[in-house]
């Protein structure tokens, strides 16, 4: 135990299961478990939709809400939840010195404008003129800002006054891993004392489904748990809307202000193992061993996406390690893309705080009856990059 241990003191999470740590603990430890899914709206795809959210609880000004598309609003909302949970919301001294790392994708395009242009392209050959004509007249000027990746962080600064520093990482699941990894490294080295880190993803927009489906990544047909989609129609991924922000602090900083500590992030690792390589499962296994240690019995909060190859490799790596008991949380929340890793770390911290494991999320998973003082969180990207964290009792 040292002063520079990195501890989690605030959790702001939203998924189809609800909002906040308590709601998630209840939804994920109850029996029987009920994933919330919508298989109609984007048929043949299933999504885990956002729960009803009272945006003004965390974003009081209507004007601010209007300046953001749902994805930015969701992230800003989750960031507010995390600050509230850490007891730092509205604390000017804390927020103006707080660093921030956000993992961000892009926003939601204007479907109507895109459709107008695409439909006209069926009958017009002057497509570049068509673009100029429609984009200059139909696009809402501020939509650009509502979509820009770095503007999620920008909005968190504006709404919650977090201004110590602001960095946005991009790049799907890996950006969520890098964000947490960098945040932990900065605190441990003394480059930062307290930091807000997280991401949000809103999947209920066809452009975001399109991106996955261009490589045939999405699961089709009837919904199945994340480990049970091999051989089913489609590419195995069921996407979800959600977000996860964490307040991380050095132990010294947290203790000095009398904060309640969920857990400690003991180690974060990342890697870039080629999908398509025969030894992908061994590479993932090595990442897990390097993060957790070779024999540490642990609950494994897996962020497996469902994408066939990556998920089969992760499953093989976990199955070969009898000391691991996996919980594939995408079964319950859908895949949250950039937010997948921060969300997994949040679930790991919650289990440690509650000194209890989650029950199996599907019939393939076994009960866990060991001590919950060390939990592994993983996020193996559906196409590239992977990371893992060891979260322990603080």
């Amino acid at each position, binding site marked *: 135990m040292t002063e520079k241990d990195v501890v989690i003191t605030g959790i702001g999470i939203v998924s189809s299961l609800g909002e906040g740590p308590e709601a998630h603990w209840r939804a994920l430890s109850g029996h029987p478990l009920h994933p919330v899914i919508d298989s109609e709206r984007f048929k043949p795809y299933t999504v885990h939709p956002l729960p009803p959210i009272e945006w003004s609880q965390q974003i009081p000004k209507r004007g601010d809400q209007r300046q953001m598309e749902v994805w930015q609003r969701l992230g800003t909302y989750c960031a507010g939840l995390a600050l509230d949970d850490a007891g730092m919301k509205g604390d000017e001294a804390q927020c103006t010195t707080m660093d921030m790392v956000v993992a961000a994708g892009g926003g939601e395009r204007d479907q109507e404008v895109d459709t107008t242009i695409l439909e006209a392209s069926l009958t017009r050959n002057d497509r570049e003129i068509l673009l100029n004509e429609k984009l200059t007249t139909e696009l809402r000027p501020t939509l650009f800002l509502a979509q820009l990746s770095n*503007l999620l962080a920008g909005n968190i600064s504006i709404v919650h006054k977090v201004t110590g520093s602001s960095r946005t990482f991009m790049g799907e699941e890996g950006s969520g891993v890098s964000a947490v990894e960098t945040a932990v490294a900065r605190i441990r080295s003394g480059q930062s004392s307290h930091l807000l880190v997280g991401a949000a993803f809103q999947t209920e927009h066809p452009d975001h489904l399109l991106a996955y489906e261009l490589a045939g990544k999405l699961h089709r047909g009837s919904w199945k748990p994340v480990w049970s989609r091999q051989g089913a129609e489609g590419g195995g991924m069921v996407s979800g809307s959600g977000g996860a922000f964490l307040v991380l602090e050095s132990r010294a900083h947290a203790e000095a202000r009398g904060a309640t500590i969920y857990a400690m992030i003991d180690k974060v690792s990342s890697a870039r193992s080629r999908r398509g390589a025969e030894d992908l499962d061994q590479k993932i296994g090595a990442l897990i061993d390097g993060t957790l240690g070779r024999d540490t019995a642990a609950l494994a909060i897996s962020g497996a996406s469902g994408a066939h190859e990556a998920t089969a490799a992760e499953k093989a790596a976990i199955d070969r390690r009898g000391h691991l008991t996996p919980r594939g949380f995408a079964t319950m929340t859908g895949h949250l893309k950039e937010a997948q890793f921060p969300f997994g770390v949040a679930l790991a911290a919650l289990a440690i705080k509650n000194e209890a494991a989650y029950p199996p999320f599907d019939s393939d998973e076994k009960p866990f009856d060991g001590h919950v003082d060390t939990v592994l969180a993983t996020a193996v990207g559906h196409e590239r990059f992977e990371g893992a964290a060891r979260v322990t009792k603080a």
Partner: protein
Amino acid sequence: MSKHTDKFGRPVVVVTGMGVVTSLGVGKKDNWAALTSGTSGITPISRFPTDLLSTRIAGTVDFLKSSGKGAMYLTYELAETAALEALAEAGANGDFGGPLFLAAPPVEIDWHQRFALYNRKAEGVGYDRLLDVARKHPSRPVYDSTQFATIADQLADRFGTTGMPITLSTACASGTTAIQLGVEAIRRGECDKALAIGTDGSATAEALIRFSLLSALSTQNDPAQKASKPFSRDRDGFVLAEGSAALVLESLDNALARGAEILGVMRGCGEKADDFHRTRSKPDGSPAIATVQAALSDAGMDESGIDYINAHGTSTPENDKMEHLSLSTVFGERMRDIPISSNKSMIGHTLSAAGAIEAAFSLMTMREGVIPPTINYDNPDPAIELDVVPNESRSADVSSVLSNSFGFGGQNACLVMAREPE
């Protein structure tokens, strides 16, 4: 333990290789010659028709193989080209062996690709139709262009960087943030070298129109090379541009041990976010002031140590006014006498790449003893009293530089660089 540490006990970080591409050309040699002769790279746009557009000029890079192929391909090639130059200069053969920090624009599916998808045989209208096409005809190249990690992954393969690369965006400060991430990783002792790249090849019609709708761009189309006029009274917006720069960052220990030539020192990095507005900065300039002060303090210097300022200098009415206010607050009366110039007067605003390009030019300014000018300074803004090195380059002994980057969305970052280690 590091032998060469700064006054805070951290490893000293130096630059041992640099590469640059802008609308002025490929490579440091051509860029420096053009930059110091006051040449503009801004031209009428030829990449796409400009009918109906109020801005018809840009600083595009039209001479690479990928220049007409779409934002993702050009953004990659720009990064690759700059990195090749930087690695050759650093004498880094084979796998680079350090991490990659890439500042790149958020790139979406190109409109040419959207049109091509939409005009395939499929059912439905709008996104239903696109999804139907995707199901029937999956396309790996189009998928790749939807993934923000694609470019960094390809660069990591190309150059043998270690671990998982980081792609980042802090808007107009991105290039600076990439350098800062590399400096911090070396200071933490995680690596003894890092590759920081800023790249932006995203001057598409949609990008231009989006900035235009925010009233951010100059509409002084004719003559194109006169449009970017930082600190001038009649400045009316920035000029969208493309480019890239790569810097090999290295601990001084590592550089000395392998006998590498040291091109300059990354003394300090500072940042501070603005909470005022999505496109406007706080009227009192406090975030920009705090950013400059943070960089000086991280460098272990006070304001008297800065010989030259490489301005953010976008040529927007707002930025140049606020930059002047902030610098005057930090440097006081002395600000009238510190030379400050804007590379953007010649190369335009290269967005995600700007911080990295301007860092490379700042290091060259010190090495060459020549300050590139602020061109198009024919009509000074009387409210901005600065020595902007007007119109012609100037010989000067410069041993330290402050380089500013202030971004849309309130992300501000500054670098303090020095010619030689202390």
